[in-house]
């Protein structure tokens, strides 16, 4: 890694001017590898400081400032290329990435979920910029409308009560302290550096644009992206669409089987009615306990249903 970064550190001071001068179709990379490396190290240290821990609040503020600064530098360098990106791209991507950072650094899971909703909305904006209007609507409906509501429900169901009783500012230990923040930041940001290097340095090797392979008359005559997508799905992806429905049904059945509870009412001591809660599907790893028709084994486990 040092091999390519050391000589280009010399040219580090003028990546912005170089990028501005470079025409869009030139083969020079937008971001020098050393810039990508330094930005990733910078953002990695910021992420490490920002992750939940018992550290002082000022350290987390420094980390937040470092992450925001790294993002701003990246934006400044990329914006200098004048690639024709509208202002909405910068707004949506900036909001999405900052909210994503808050998702992984906020100690309270409810706030993480709400920041993820913000990320979803910003991504939907990016999808609209990419002419995928139907996918933007589907993203908002499915992610922000369905999945995130389920997450918030589960967070409320599985919230731990504080030992002292005051629950307003209580953060449990596993939320307040993250596991191996240094190694996690190093690995994640190293992957980010490699990905950004490949994208910006080898981007010219991307496959040349070819005419779409699905030039069916039914698709071409359609107006608007949503109609085209629907016709494409039902011409080319019919079986896959049915399989997607099947997968959703199976996962619904599986979720019911996993989380269903069996409530048993019975007489407790002193004649009072009692309620016992047990998993509806008993977890059983004994192969001999599977009841076989026609045989009665003494070791067979009694199922609640039998």
């Amino acid at each position, binding site marked *: 890694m040092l091999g390519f970064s050391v000589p280009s550190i010399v040219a580090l001071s003028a990546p912005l001017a170089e990028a501005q001068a470079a025409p869009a179709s030139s083969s020079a990379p937008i971001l020098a590898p050393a810039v990508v490396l330094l930005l990733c190290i910078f953002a990695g240290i910021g992420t490490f400081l920002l992750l939940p821990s018992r550290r002082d609040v000022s350290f987390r503020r420094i980390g937040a400032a470092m992450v925001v600064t790294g993002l701003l530098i990246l934006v400044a360098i990329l914006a200098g*290329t*004048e*690639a024709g990106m*509208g202002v909405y*791209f910068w707004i949506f*991507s900036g909001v999405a*990435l900052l909210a994503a*950072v808050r998702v*992984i650094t906020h100690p309270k*899971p409810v706030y*993480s979920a709400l920041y*993820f909703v913000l*990320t979803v909305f910003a*991504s939907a904006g*990016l999808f609209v910029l*990419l*002419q995928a209007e*139907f*996918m933007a609507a*589907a*993203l908002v409906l*499915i992610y922000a409308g369905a*999945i995130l509501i*389920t*997450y918030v429900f*589960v967070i409320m169901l*599985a919230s*731990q009560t504080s030992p002292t009783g005051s629950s307003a500012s209580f953060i*449990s*230990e*596993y*939320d307040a*302290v993250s*596991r*191996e*923040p240094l190694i996690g*930041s190093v*690995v*994640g940001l190293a992957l*980010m550096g490699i*990905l*950004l290097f490949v*994208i910006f340095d080898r*981007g010219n090797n991307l*496959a040349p*644009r070819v005419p*779409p392979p699905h030039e069916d008359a039914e698709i071409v005559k359609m107006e608007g*992206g949503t109609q085209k*997508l629907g016709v*494409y799905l039902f011409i*080319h992806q019919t079986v*896959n669409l049915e399989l*997607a429905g099947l997968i*959703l049904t199976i*996962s*619904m059945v*599986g*979720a*019911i089987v*996993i989380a269903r509870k069996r409530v048993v009412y019975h007489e407790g001591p002193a004649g009072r009615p009692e309620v016992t809660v047990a998993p509806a599907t008993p977890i059983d790893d004994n192969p001999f306990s599977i009841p076989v028709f026609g045989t009665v084994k003494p070791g067979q486990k009694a199922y609640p249903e039998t």
Partner: protein
Amino acid sequence: MAWASSPCSKLERKNLHGQDAHATVMTVLQLEHYLAVGAIMFCIGLVGFMTRRNLIVVFLCTELMFQGVAINLIAFSAFHQNLGGQAFVIFVLVIAASEASLALGLVILLFREKNTLDADAWRQLRG
């Protein structure tokens, strides 16, 4: 490269003038911008997946990684003017929805077992 508007307006302008259907919507440079956003979002989700200990937040981070991949797919779909990318994102959404329902059911089950959401409480699963 002087037009500083969204790719959407470019396509509409082309279509209004009745030119070819394959209007120049994206350049390689713009594609790189979207790919960078997707990659950064994926890596942020990866960091969260490795460092957070709350099971629910861990699954939230996988959704974040799904988001990054979806942005990549949509960007390539717009770049190649191929609807396959959008269709792929539909299936990604299907898998994400089923994964979320199953994972949250498992989280409820695990929470009932140990009365905590700490992923380290299930350290014995590492073997």
